[in-house]
């Protein structure tokens, strides 16, 4: 219960209130921005700032790293002049404005949404923005984090604040224990299939319940990451002991007496027991099976035992036509089972699933097997890569014939040249199966790292639960 003198509030409302600097007309609020992440796609915003002759208000609150254009090999001497230019432009912009930079040759470089939490830049109760829609990831630590466009990036650089309209709140209560072989990626794919690709539009999602509490930090990030695929700009999870344990001792986490002060504040953040949400949604994790998408929207997820849906069941003509278009693009037929579908290529990586636990889950399936199709693993950061190598995971992948690359966005979006060829089917641990997302004409099937690994060693969409695993290494917990 909230103290009787303050009305009950959700986590979102508490962070919002704490950061409101000024009120504008029509319910617009000027929100203070605590942390700002920048990447090599931010050059438009830097250019706009420069053109307007404005200075960066708080370089100490901004952190930059190249990720979208970062080559995943041969980066000591980047051959493609355009890629090199994007990486160097970011690095030059960051240096000129005295923004903290994790450059391409630094072990701390990686995907912005991996390194924010990893460096302790992301903290409970803060506001954090980035010119990238998957900024929702950082909500896993109880930060109000959302993606913004280039104009807003320039606005934050200049003012350290943003005009925002308060979103509605939706609580997603997850109960039940994940069955073996089912992971947090399956929770979020199932949720998006349930509420739709715009079910969360206009809302801030808060993931709650025992099914969320039981998850590791990495697994929580996977869920918050894909909030935007349900249309929600932000997804939140209240901080708890798992969060504090994760953050303790990280380079940018508060230290010493500050850590104790921070903890006291963080413990007040969770939504009050009697707080009201505008919408409530429930999901039973125990009832889930491994998921895969069939179409070109993240809402096109089905259980691995399921079949491709029939558009003729759609009453809305526009929706029906869009589904038919998706089926044509994906070269699939209604009623076709998703399991057994031949796959040409596997990508394990992206800000959704490139953290150490993701690589462990994939390696567990790969160990002692061989990839029968081209497959690559792209760790989310140099530090994830190093940690994986310390555990010998790189050997597991390399021995099985996987490509083991340097950190970056890579084949999630293909901007660095890591592309899926036209017509190829890719089993991918990323977050978007849009037409052309991984390359022109590329066909993407989204799934968990364990499922992607199963696809790599079998050459088709395979229920990972049917693959025998080494004794004592059941594909259970976390992720």
């Amino acid at each position, binding site marked *: 219960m909230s103290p009787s003198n303050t009305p009950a509030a959700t986590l979102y409302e508490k962070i919002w209130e704490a950061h409101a600097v000024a009120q504008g007309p029509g319910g617009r609020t000027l929100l203070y921005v605590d942390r700002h992440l920048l990447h090599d796609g931010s050059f438009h915003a830097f250019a706009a700032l420069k053109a307007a002759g404005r200075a960066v208000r708080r370089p100490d609150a901004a952190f930059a790293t190249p990720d979208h254009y970062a080559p995943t090999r041969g980066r000591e001497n980047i051959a493609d002049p355009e890629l090199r230019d994007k990486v160097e432009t970011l690095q030059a912009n960051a240096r000129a404005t005295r923004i903290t930079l994790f450059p391409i040759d630094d072990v701390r470089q990686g995907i912005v949404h991996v390194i924010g939490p990893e460096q302790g830049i992301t903290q409970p109760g803060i506001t954090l923005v980035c010119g990238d829609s998957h900024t929702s990831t950082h909500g896993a630590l109880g930060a109000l984090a959302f993606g913004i466009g280039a104009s807003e990036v320039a606005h934050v650089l200049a003012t350290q604040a943003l005009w925002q309209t308060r979103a509605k709140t939706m609580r997603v209560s997850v109960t039940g224990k994940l069955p073996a072989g089912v992971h947090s990626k399956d929770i979020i794919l199932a949720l998006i299939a349930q509420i739709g690709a715009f079910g969360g539009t206009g809302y801030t999602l808060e993931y709650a319940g025992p099914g969320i509490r039981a998850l590791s930090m990495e697994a929580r990030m996977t869920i918050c990451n894909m909030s935007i695929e349900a249309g929600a700009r932000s997804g939140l999870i209240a901080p708890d002991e798992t969060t504090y344990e994760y953050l303790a001792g990280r380079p940018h986490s508060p230290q010493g007496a500050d850590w104790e002060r921070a903890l006291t504040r963080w413990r007040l953040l969770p939504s009050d027991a009697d707080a009201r949400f505008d919408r409530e949604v429930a999901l039973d994790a125990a009832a889930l099976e491994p998921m895969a998408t069939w179409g070109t929207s993240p809402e096109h997820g089905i259980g691995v035992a399921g079949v491709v849906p029939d558009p003729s069941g759609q009453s809305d003509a526009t929706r029906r036509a869009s589904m038919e278009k998706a089926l044509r693009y994906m070269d699939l037929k209604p009623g076709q089972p998703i399991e057994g579908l031949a796959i040409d290529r596997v990508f394990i990586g992206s800000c959704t699933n490139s953290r150490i636990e993701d690589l462990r889950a994939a390696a567990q399936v790969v160990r002692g097997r061989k990839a029968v199709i081209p497959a690559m693993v792209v760790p989310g950061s140099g530090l994830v890569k190093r940690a994986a190598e310390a555990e010998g995971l790189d050997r597991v992948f390399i021995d099985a014939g996987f490509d083991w690359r340097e950190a970056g966005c890579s084949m999630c979006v*293909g901007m660095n040249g890591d592309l899926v060829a036209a017509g190829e089917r890719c089993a991918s641990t990323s977050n978007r199966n849009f037409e052309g997302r991984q390359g022109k004409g590329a066909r993407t099937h989204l799934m968990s790292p364990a499922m992607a690994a199963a696809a790599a060693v079998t050459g088709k969409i395979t229920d990972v639960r049917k693959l025998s695993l080494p004794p004592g290494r059941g594909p259970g917990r976390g992720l």
Partner: protein
Amino acid sequence: MTPFNTLTSIAVPLDIVNVDTDRIVPARFLRQPRSAGYQNFLFHDLREGDEDFVFDRAEYQGAQILVAAENFGCGSSREAAVWALAGAGLRAWIAPSFGDIFFENSFKNGVLAIVLPLDRVAGLRSLLQREPGARLTIDLQAQTVTFPDGSIEGFEIDPFRKECLLAGIDEIDLTMRHVDQIAAYEDRQRAETPWLAASR
């Protein structure tokens, strides 16, 4: 930014749900500077596969209004999606719902994004398909859209965005008027959460 008042124009209908910003501008073009003219990449791959793509049909040339389906502009935060559409001459878009970031980006570029009820927008799209070249009128001050049949539909817009559009205001200038409040916030931050504050 060019102020927005009233607009009467041909409207082009796009009958696809969940049009993501990757489709509006494929990622491989994002390395271009803005001066490259993002309208050149607008719906690039969609157009290539469809010679009869609605944006290329003669009847809709000169359209300044787009009428789209649910969740238009979902996905990536790339503002290039707005630049491409605006660069192609569009000044307003109407849909039953938009991706939140795309919606925000629209106003930042002087474009009016209007949400109308699903059935009204669906009806409007089919009318525009039946009668290509039909015109709509948008009156921002009055917050109305006049359909080709003369019927009028009101729309909501938050007063802040409306003011900015009507006057063509740069938001950063507006925010700078609150710089004292921002500085006061920073003082409080230094006292309460010094680990988040700038070290002096």
